[in-house]
């Protein structure tokens, strides 16, 4: 296919792959990026929220031409039971700054833009090319890739595995194990189109302001899961995701779950009259710190979802992807500048730099959360949302019952559902995992 040898091959054109390819090419390295989709972005699925700070570190003036939807001024977290939601909302005029911190984006459009930047930086981007195998020498060092193009072997000093959550190539080459059902969530989402002014009226927005709703509770039917609703300029992304192991055990259909969420009385009016233009599904790494595979070896580094770098608690993924891609590229550039070989001993610099960044620090902080939420999913996603809803209703329903009696009734409901020891234990375990 291509006779020449590259400094680096980047497999995949998602957030981490584009960040790596852009950074490498900008530093003057000879880069080949391979993407199996028709165009960069055509296989990528995200909610999607994009974090400005992490993109600024790669493309400082991205706001000039990146396709951004809305900057987020309001965050709502809803705890839901079947007929209610108890909400925590935060909205601030301070989010209307010159350089907003978070934006909603539409990935296919954003990725096309990012890919253009990668090409402009000097990388060769080859789409419609599926990498089928990593090529290793007799000592196991990765020296290139095999693609499904005719005669499709390409060599490079280092391969950046930005292949996404499934990590197919890494698994086949024995560099990692495949994701496990309890460490990945299956999320499904739909794109609902509505006129701009309707979105602005329904979500109390002006101009480019955006709103995000994240919701948990009985909507996931006892499974560990989260639903979301993000406002784009002329569309609303609506989705729900739960652990694959929970789906398999509960035998729930993901699209029926999404349909139930859309029909919830708190959500339905927000989507009324919309036109659905796409239905997508994707896996999300949820295993946290303990699920991170080896990040580098002889001739390769692993970045983004492929390295399971996703902060499930804060629902951050694309920023960890971009940052790991950038840092991997910077490490490779340093090794290259020293004219050192791309061995594990040298590439470990990437891991060291990542350990010092927010990426690993944050994942380490929440290392016990995935397990806690998974083993207590009935309590956290069914029992507590129902109790909280009942407590709120009890508090707000005025019927002549003395307030003291109402409070006692609420306390009794909590104790009855979880016992005093259970309540203390849940609070303690949560605090411990959060620490």
């Amino acid at each position, binding site marked *: 296919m291509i006779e020449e040898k590259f400094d680096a091959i980047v497999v995949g054109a998602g957030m981490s792959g584009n960040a790596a390819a852009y950074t490498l090419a900008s530093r003057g390295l000879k880069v080949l990026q391979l993407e199996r989709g*028709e165009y960069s972005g*055509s*296989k990528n699925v995200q909610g999607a929220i994009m974090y400005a700070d992490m993109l600024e570190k790669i493309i400082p003036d991205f706001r000039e031409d990146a396709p951004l939807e809305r900057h987020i001024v309001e965050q709502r977290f809803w705890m839901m039971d079947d*007929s209610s939601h108890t909400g925590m909302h935060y909205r601030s005029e301070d989010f209307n700054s010159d350089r907003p911190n978070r934006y909603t984006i539409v990935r296919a459009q954003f990725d096309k833009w990012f890919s253009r930047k990668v090409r402009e930086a000097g990388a060769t981007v080859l789409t419609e090319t599926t990498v089928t195998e990593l090529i290793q020498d007799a000592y196991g060092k990765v020296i290139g890739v095999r693609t499904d193009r005719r005669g499709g072997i390409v060599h490079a000093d280092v391969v950046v595995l930005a292949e996404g959550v499934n990590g197919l190539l890494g698994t086949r080459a024995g560099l990692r194990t495949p994701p496990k059902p309890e460490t990945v969530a*299956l999320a*499904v989402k739909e794109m609902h189109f509505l006129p701009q002014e309707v979105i602005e009226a329904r979500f109390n927005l002006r101009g480019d302001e955006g709103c995000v709703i994240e919701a948990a509770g009985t909507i996931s039917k006892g499974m560990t899961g989260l639903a979301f609703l993000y406002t784009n300029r002329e569309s609303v992304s609506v989705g729900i995701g739960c652990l694959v192991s929970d*789906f398999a055990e509960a035998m729930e259909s993901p699209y029926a779950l999404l349909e139930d969420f859309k029909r919830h009385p708190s959500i339905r009016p927000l989507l009324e009259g919309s036109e659905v233009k796409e239905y997508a599904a994707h896996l999300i790494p949820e295993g946290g710190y303990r699920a991170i595979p080896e990040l580098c070896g002889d001739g390769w580094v692993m970045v983004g979802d492929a390295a399971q770098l996703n902060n499930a608690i804060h629902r951050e993924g694309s920023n960890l992807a971009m940052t790991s891609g950038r840092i991997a590229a910077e490490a490779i550039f340093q090794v290259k500048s020293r004219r050192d070989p791309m061995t594990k001993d040298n590439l470990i610099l990437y891991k060291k730099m990542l350990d010092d960044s927010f990426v690993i620090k944050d994942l380490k902080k929440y290392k016990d959360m995935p397990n806690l939420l998974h083993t207590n999913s009935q309590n956290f996603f069914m029992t507590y949302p129902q109790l909280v809803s009942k407590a709120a209703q009890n508090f707000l329903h005025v019927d002549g019952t003395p307030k003291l009696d109402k409070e006692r009734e609420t306390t009794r409901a909590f104790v009855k559902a979880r016992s005093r020891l259970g309540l203390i234990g849940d609070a303690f375990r949560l605090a411990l995992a959060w620490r």
Partner: protein
Amino acid sequence: MNAIVKPAQDVRVEDKLFQNRYLVDAGRPHIKVAPHETPSAALLALTRICPAKCYEQNERGQVEITPDGCMECGTCRVLCEAKGEIEWNYPRGGFGVLFKFG
């Protein structure tokens, strides 16, 4: 409290997939189910949890796949590849689902 949400078991995934763009690699399915007499619990679960409903039981109770509407998420691989119940690959370059929005 009354549950006023009716379960959405009536929803047809075909209507959802109809919105999507695909380039099907005719005659070269990227996922195959290994021959079996009785499906395992995991294989059977796919008939419910595959988000594109690609897996269905035939009249003999065996699980079959038609991956035309596959969104390439990898759920079935995570559940069934390790035990050799399915063979899972990405479609050839350019084929498969093409997300307009993603």
